[in-house]
């Protein structure tokens, strides 16, 4: 197994269990996955509008190797299917994004959103319960009021730990189009929600109004050539945010300059190579995800075939470009026919911004080491998820001769796609959502 460390400094070992639901219904398909800022909690959202929160097991001295197991902490229904009667539109309950808020007291807070409504959830623990009524006895029977001769004040008694999720705020009625991303500002006071044409700025405490800071809707919708695909706040500079577009460009906006951010302050775009131009060029250049690096120096974008890293100081071309699955370039026609070409893959940084990860088809996901320029393809599947085993790298062969252990492009399963992944903020633990399964892999424990 030594040879794999050639590719990456990390060896991923799956945990003893795969967190997945037993029945395979559409509602169980995981639609987003996100670690909180300490990495102790991991949340997933699914097409059925549910949010499942996992908590990392506390380290125990007797079994140090068990450190890292994530167990279900809380499950709740975040969104319900709705119907917009004015527009005769169904509003899906599918959770599009989850974002954790930094912890502010003993409770945890997260924002979850479907196509139209963002909700702020509080997840809190309760381990005490009041006991003792005046008008009821211990068994709950009503007491005769005439027998009351003294007053009883309830007393709090310990009880089994109960985890409650309560919707603290509902931010609704601000989006005409589908919300594709939400992002919390570093001032911890505001966040943005983004749909196809607009970016709205909210105060986390105010639900009845938001400010529209970007609006790219043309007066005549027939002139529409570009939509917003994703947006994110800078991790440290409270006034900077970036949004990506379906044309493959990224705009950086400075909220200090003006109240409305229709004018960007930086515009990142790579000039198109005329030699590779084809019918699909525009579709595959559409950016499906944009992420600032933790240190705030870089932007990472994912389009259909590549991941690019941009330096905020260089607008004309990306610093690094990584091919995710270049072998699909020849198959774009069939991917267009089965709609796969419109899949929205996300991308993530590791804690130190040195490795990036993104998904592919056939339950494969890719990692790129920015320092060593090594890359690896791994597979999330039940078959090779034996406890304490090490994930074997996979290889897809392009040419005619297929070596042992290689998979031919034609045998890739395009229904098994890994769109959503997340990386623990400080450690080498990753969570990978493969349809209705969540795989949590961990760096090898020595």
């Amino acid at each position, binding site marked *: 197994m030594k040879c794999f460390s050639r590719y990456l400094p990390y060896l991923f070992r799956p945990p003893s269990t795969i967190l997945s639901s037993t029945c395979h219904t559409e509602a169980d398909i995981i639609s987003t996955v996100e670690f909180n800022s300490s990495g102790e909690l991991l949340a997933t959202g699914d097409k059925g509008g549910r949010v499942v929160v996992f908590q990392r097991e506390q380290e125990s001295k007797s079994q140090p190797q068990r450190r890292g197991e994530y167990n279900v902490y809380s499950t709740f229904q975040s969104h319900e299917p709705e119907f917009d009667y004015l527009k005769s539109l169904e509003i899906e309950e599918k959770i599009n994004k989850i974002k954790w808020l930094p*912890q502010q007291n003993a409770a945890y807070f997260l924002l979850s959103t479907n196509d139209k409504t963002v909700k702020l959830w*509080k997840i809190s623990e309760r381990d005490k319960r009041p006991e003792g009524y*005046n008008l009821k006895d211990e068994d709950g029977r009503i007491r005769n009021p*005439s027998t009351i001769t003294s*007053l009883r004040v*309830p007393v*709090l008694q310990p009880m089994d730990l109960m985890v409650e999720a309560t919707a603290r705020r509902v931010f609704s009625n601000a989006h005409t189009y589908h919300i594709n991303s939400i992002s919390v500002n*570093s*001032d911890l006071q505001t966040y943005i929600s983004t749909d196809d044409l607009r970016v709205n700025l909210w105060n986390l405490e105010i639900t009845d109004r938001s400010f529209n800071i970007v609006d790219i809707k043309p007066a005549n919708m027939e002139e529409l050539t570009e939509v917003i695909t994703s947006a994110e706040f800078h991790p440290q500079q409270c006034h900077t945010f970036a949004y990506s577009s379906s044309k493959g460009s990224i705009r950086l906006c400075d909220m200090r300059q003006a109240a409305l951010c229709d004018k960007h302050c930086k515009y990142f775009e790579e000039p198109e190579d005329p030699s590779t131009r084809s019918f699909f060029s525009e579709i595959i250049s559409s950016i499906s995800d944009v992420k600032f690096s933790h240190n705030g120096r870089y932007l990472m974008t994912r389009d259909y075939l590549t991941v690019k890293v941009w330096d905020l100081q260089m607008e004309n071309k990306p610093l690094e470009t990584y091919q995710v699955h270049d072998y699909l370039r020849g198959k774009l026609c069939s991917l267009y026919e089965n709609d796969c070409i419109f899949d929205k893959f996300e991308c993530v940084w590791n804690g130190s911004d040195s490795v990036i990860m993104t998904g592919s088809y056939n339950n494969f996901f890719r990692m790129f080491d920015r320092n060593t320029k090594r890359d690896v393809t791994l597979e999330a599947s039940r078959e090779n998820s034996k406890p304490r085993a090490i994930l074997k790298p996979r290889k897809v062969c392009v040419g005619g001769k297929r070596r042992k252990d290689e998979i031919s492009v034609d045998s890739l399963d395009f229904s098994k796609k890994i769109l959503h992944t997340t990386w623990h903020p400080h450690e080498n633990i990753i969570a990978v959502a493969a349809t209705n399964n969540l795989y949590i892999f961990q760096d090898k424990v020595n």
Partner: protein
Amino acid sequence: MAGADGDDSLYPIAVLIDELRNEDVQLRLNSIKKLSTIALALGVERTRTELLPFLTDTIYDEDEVLLALAEQLGNFTMLVGGPEYVHCLLPPLESLATVEETVVRDKAVESLRKISQEHSPVDLEVHFEPLVKRLASGDWFTSRTSACGLFSVCYPRVSSTVKAEIRQHFRTLCSDDTPMVRRAAASKLGEFAKVLELDYVKSDIISLFTALASDEQDSVRLLAVEACVSIATLLPQEDLETLVMPTLRQAAEDKSWRVRYMVADKFSELQKAVGPEITKNDLVPAFQNLLKDCEAEVRAAAANKVKEFCENLPEDSREQIIMTHILPCVKELVSDTNQHVKSALASVIMGLSTILGKDNTIEHLLPLFLAQLKDECPEVRLNIISNLDCVNEVIGIRQLSQSLLPAIVELAEDAKWRVRLAIIEYMPLLAGQLGVEFFDEKLNTLCMAWLIDHVYAIREAATCNLMKLVEKFGAEWAQNTIVPKVLGMANDPNYLHRMTTLFCINALSEACGQDITTKQMLPVVLKMSNDQVANVRFNVAKSLQKIGPVLDSNALQSEVKPVLEKLATDTDMDVKYFAQEAISGTAAAKQIIFGILHLTALILPPNPEWTTTHLYSLGMFQVELVLVDQYKAVLGVHSLHHLTVQEGALQPRQAQAV
């Protein structure tokens, strides 16, 4: 309800205590609001040992319950045994000061500040100050933000060693990792500075202020502007230049528009705080820059302050500063590209005329007013019109009337009904300024035209406007100019217009008085009782009920009663209903007037509001006040408790039957 054995006074308290944990939030809320009753019943000892420990742990509840609890605890000192035991209230308030909901936390802090005053100096050091320290060094920023609001209340009353600790804690919070805490510290900086010794203000506060004012977070920097006002008032004039002004100058030119907006928004306060000399040298250019800012929000905020800023300029150089520095900027703003900026300016620009006097107003301001009266944005025109009284005092409104009239006419015919509504509301004001002749000549037709507007809200406002005009110009004017036109509409083919006649009569009868109502309006109303549209007929019944109190009893008996009786047999259900309502209503009105006032008051529920609404429904405005007095007399006889019991039992209909 309680039996012979039990103590029947305990039962309601037992219910209240149990409902502290009821599943229904409303019931829990009710119980919390009556917490003092519970505490009173339990006595000080049990309140301290049982109730407060229980409340300390009930932080799981809904925000509104926690908010009520935090508020209650601020008034609990006597219920725990007086100032000697007031520290018992600290634990529950401490736990409330750490919840995530800002309003609850703020209320808990407010209550803590309140009870801090009830601590003896010793208790303050033994109990209160340690709590502040605990909060200030808490793990979560919710507790640290709460701590920021408590320093200033304990600082003046503790020993100098503790004072030094408090200053240290505040300093730490000003450089906290989370912006939430820095914001809380920045917003309390001014308040804390006020209780500090001047030396420490200069040594400690200024450095904190400078640091917060150059924080990386916009939201922190903008709060430092507010602190600037209080700090500047504390410092002697000679120190301002070195200690405060560099920071203020920097804030006025901050990269972030939000910070500059804050400077513009607080400009009058800043101006007062730094005094006339610095205003002349520094603030005038700063204000000019804000008026020319590249962000419209900032310009609008600054434009809003133009009048106040000019008013507060030192008198010796006021006119010169305005004419040479401010007015040129104002002139540019009149043709600003952003309508919010223009309308902000329009709402204050008229105020400049009193400051500049007649000649300058005519020469320099009048062209601006006229330009704004012709602005494309209706809000700008409306704001000018709504402030006409300021100019009237200085140059007289005639100067403006040439341009005023077209502006009014245009607004009156605006396609947006909200704009039309807004101008109607200014009509009484305009009429007062322009005088009756000008009004009759130019505006009367407009007022009448609104009566047949196709939007109901406009017709309604127009009737109300007529009433106000009559109140202003008198009944005689009404009889000559308005009443004939209103009554003429009774024959309009459109039933909506015919109804407008009735609505006008409702509104005007009182202002016009008995004579006009009986002789001119009543015949028209009575005639309309034969209208073919049922809506008109039942509005006749309603009108008769409304104008009943104005009419003399003779007319009521001989003319109104027969018509109402006829309407009461109408084929239409609604007409019947309103006719019957009117009959019982006018009957009650009559009887009250005939002197059984006291009897009615006796059986009316003991709630003056209810009485008032009820009487309004009877159409008896003028007896309302008498009745409230009667009601007070009744209260003197009966105990409050007794009357409360009656409240539910009495239905409005029983009152009408008198």
